[in-house]
Structure formats: C-alpha cells, structure tokens
C-alpha cells in the first residue's frame, strides 16, 4: 500500500520534506491550517493566537489537567497566500532546538483531492536529527518509565 504521509530526510542535511495527499478539496485542507478551532482539534493543542497574514504571529500551548504547560510553541508568519502557501517560523519554547523555518505549499490534485508539501529547515544537521528522533525517544522513555514502575512494584 502506498503510504499517504512521506518523510524525506537525507543524511547529513539540515532539512526535511513531509508530503501528504489528502482526500479533501484544496480549500478545506487550507482551512484546517487557518481556523484556530480546527487547528486545535487535529494538532491536539490550544491555539492562543493565530494571525493569518504577512508579519502575523502565532502561539500554541498544551497544558495538563492541572494547568501545567507541557508544550508551547510560537512563530511569525512571513508569507500567507490563501490556498497556496504559508511560510512561517516555528520555535518550541524551553527546548534546545532553536528556530525552524517552515514552507507549507498547498496544491490541488483534483476537485476532491489535494496535497501538502511541508519543507522544514533547521539550524543544523544535529538539531534536525534530534527533532526527527524525538517521537522515538519519547516512546523509549515511556517504555522505560513503565519498566521502572514494574520493577518498583516487585520490590
């Protein structure tokens, strides 16, 4: 089966390209990136601010049940062309990943299908590799914590 989401990350480069074909008309795909309530649903984070315009800014935040901030990110929108292109910076607060530059290109395939091309540029190869490994590392941490918990139950 053809994979819908593809990640292209060449060894030794400080960029990645994520592509995805959607079973959605272009306008709906683009709307999912611009309506705060919709962004919140699929990104799983709260949208504190989202100004869809050149020189606009954005800020997302995720908190736990007690209100502790688990994740906060912000950036500036450099280019905003409806149904075509968003260029923005992305900075994860309190993380050592520095600021990344994102080129989002939206393309119509047919009347009912569309495609997103997300080109992300990082400050260095090392930071790119760290970001790429993050979901795997979190998985390992979770497994490790569960293992620790299991071990302490035995004692």
């Amino acid at each position, binding site marked *: 089966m053809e994979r819908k989401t593809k990640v292209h990350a060449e060894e030794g480069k400080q960029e990645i390209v994520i592509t995805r074909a959607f079973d959605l008309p272009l306008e709906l795909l683009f709307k*999912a990136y611009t309506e705060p309530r919709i962004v919140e649903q699929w990104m799983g984070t709260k949208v504190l601010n989202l100004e869809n315009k050149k020189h606009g800014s954005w800020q997302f935040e995720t908190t736990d049940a007690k209100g502790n901030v688990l994740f906060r990110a912000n950036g500036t929108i450099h280019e905003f062309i409806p149904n075509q292109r968003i260029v923005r910076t992305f900075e994860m607060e309190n993380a050592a990943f520095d600021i990344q530059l994102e080129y989002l290109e939206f393309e119509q395939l047919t009347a009912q299908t569309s495609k997103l091309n997300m080109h992300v540029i990082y400050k260095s190869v090392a930071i790119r590799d760290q970001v790429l490994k993050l979901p795997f590392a979190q998985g390992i941490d979770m497994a490790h914590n569960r293992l620790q918990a299991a071990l302490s139950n035995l004692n």
Partner: protein
Amino acid sequence: MNLRRDVFQAIADPTRRAILLLVASQSMTAGAIASNFNTARPTISKHLQILTQCQLLEQEQNGREVHYYINAEKMKEVADFIEPFRKMWDERFNKLEAIMKEFKPKQ
C-alpha cells in the same frame, strides 16, 4: 520492504522496546527477561518471537539455555528512527482529514 516494515512494527510496541532496552546491556534468557515484567510469560514469549523473526534479537544456545541478544546490525538499520516521526505526522494528518470531511460551512 516488507521486512523493513515488520521491524518498525516490532519497535512500535512499548513492551518490545523495553525488552530491547533490557537485552541491550547483556544477553538474557527468556525467563530472566520475563521476570522484569508483570506481563504473563506467554505474552513475553510472543514478543520475543516477533523480535527474533524480524532479526532485532538473535538466539544463542548455551547448554540447555537459550540466550537472547541484540542484533546490532539490524538495530543500526532502524537507527535513523524516522518511522515514529512519520507516524506522528501521519496520525495528525489522518485526524485533519477526518475532521474536514465532516466540516460543514456555517449557513
């Protein structure tokens, strides 16, 4: 290609990742591995079987005991660990697609 996907499916499971983490430092018998988990022994055996099938673990007969150890070569093959990253985006985009399919513009 199929084998590669199997490897990623193998490491997608938290118990199997914990097993790899355990065995990474020293080779161990199935019993010693199972004693680290609350999970039933047959379940751990099943996980060991999957890890062995996709060659992340190898078996070595040691007298009457079978020891499991990490296949470093195979682990290196998945060392870029991009798959969980791809999966994270794939899941987000699946959600986006599902939400927008239900989307009705306000009258």
